[in-house]
């Protein structure tokens, strides 16, 4: 099981050809209190970089993009009533959706945890 991050602060945890996607702990910290998450429909086919979800904090709405292409297989229904789970556990219980990868080769170029942490430090 490997976790990758994007420059737009999504994470993707990969197991074979299946993956789970969410936003990073850094992203939830930047957004502040999350009050709404709009999730994709199960079955939706996403291209790499396509808008997949919307996360809304008290202040603003932000788009969440698909880190790689694939088909949505499951969404985290718990976020509908308790979007604050994303603040509490962004990289665990606060996952957004699961997908079946179209092309695992697209994972190349994403950051591993160390690289992402350095990237975030560079943004400060």
């Amino acid at each position, binding site marked *: 099981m490997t976790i990758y991050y994007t420059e737009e602060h999504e994470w993707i945890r990969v197991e074979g050809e299946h993956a789970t996607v969410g936003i990073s702990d850094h992203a939830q910290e930047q957004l*502040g*209190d999350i*009050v*709404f998450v*709009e999730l994709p429909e199960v079955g939706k086919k996403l291209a790499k970089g396509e808008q997949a979800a*919307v996360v*809304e*904090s*008290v*202040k*603003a*709405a932000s788009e969440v993009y698909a880190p790689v292409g694939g088909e949505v297989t499951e969404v985290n229904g718990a976020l*509908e009533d308790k*979007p604050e789970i994303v603040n509490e556990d962004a990289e665990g219980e606060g996952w957004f959706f699961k997908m079946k990868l179209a092309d695992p080769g697209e994972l190349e170029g994403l950051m591993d945890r160390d690289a992402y942490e350095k990237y975030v430090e560079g943004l400060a």
Partner: protein
Amino acid sequence: MSSPARTPLFDLHLELGARMVAFAGYEMPLRYPAGIIAEHRHCRSRAALFDVSHMGQLRILGEDAAAALEGLVPADIRGLAVGRNRYTMFTNDAGGILDDLIAGREKEGLFLVVNAARKAADIAHLKAALEPACTVEPLEDRALLALQGPAAAEVLARLRPEVDELRFMESGWFELAGARCRVARCGYTGEDGFEISVPADAATELARALLASEEVAPAGLGARDSLRLEAGLCLYGHDLDETTTPVEAGLAWTIGRRRREEGGFPGAEVILRQLREGAPRRLAGLRPEGRVPVREGAEIRLPGGAVIGRVTSGGFGPTVGGPVAMGYLDSAHEAPGTRLEVLVRGRAVPAEVARLPFVPHRYRR
């Protein structure tokens, strides 16, 4: 672009862990580590301290200051007793709003608090109209703190018991933190509370003295916005601008009887006609169904039909526990309970016209 200005409390904000943002030319705290929702709830249940030093404070001196100001605003200013304050707005010849403000009567002249983003324009406007008969004096060496919430009076009275004698929209001068402060019992949250004008060099000491009370927590601009929205209070540049009249904005109550009879303020023709005949559109509250926040700019439509207006302020209301919004709509549909819909990312969200405020005001009258 020039770097944003700092208020006298800048270092204290950093010490408290604030996330700072640029707002109206100032570097202001958006939120502290507790977060917007916690800060909002703390204000409703105990007391919150806001730095609002970015707002413009000014004095108008001169024997006929009150009569002179009436030439620019539709409120009854001459009828204000010393120590009384009124909410009003600078209007233009079309009846639109140049800024909204609080004007207070002092022993000598008037004390005005205006919006940060409109401060320079307001001062120029006042000087052009009122000088040389009156003197317009911007007070740049004063900070402004807002202490808001049900515990605010008890906290401030610990420093100076007399402040609790003030009623809503009354003001007076008191010594706090060793400095001469102007305390006005008003605010922008819907709660009881005070706005304290304090000399810049005493502001941090006063803020620390207030924060030392266990009831008080700091709150930033994020909570200020969600609190005022729930309280149905307008934000200039969003709910009010040069194209919206006081009648359309639901602010007819700020226009006193004598001013309705006499006119004599910019845009009186339009505003008095709207008072008699009604306005074509009205600012209304909206309660969207579900959880999705409906934000500024969203179209308001009849169910499945025509666009009848637009949202001017909207977001999540922590005390309401769901989305709340305000917007202008065709006055034929302004009745509370009217079923409408708002468009969010291309999807129609059912919404109902709601009575403002969303959360009852708790002023000490």
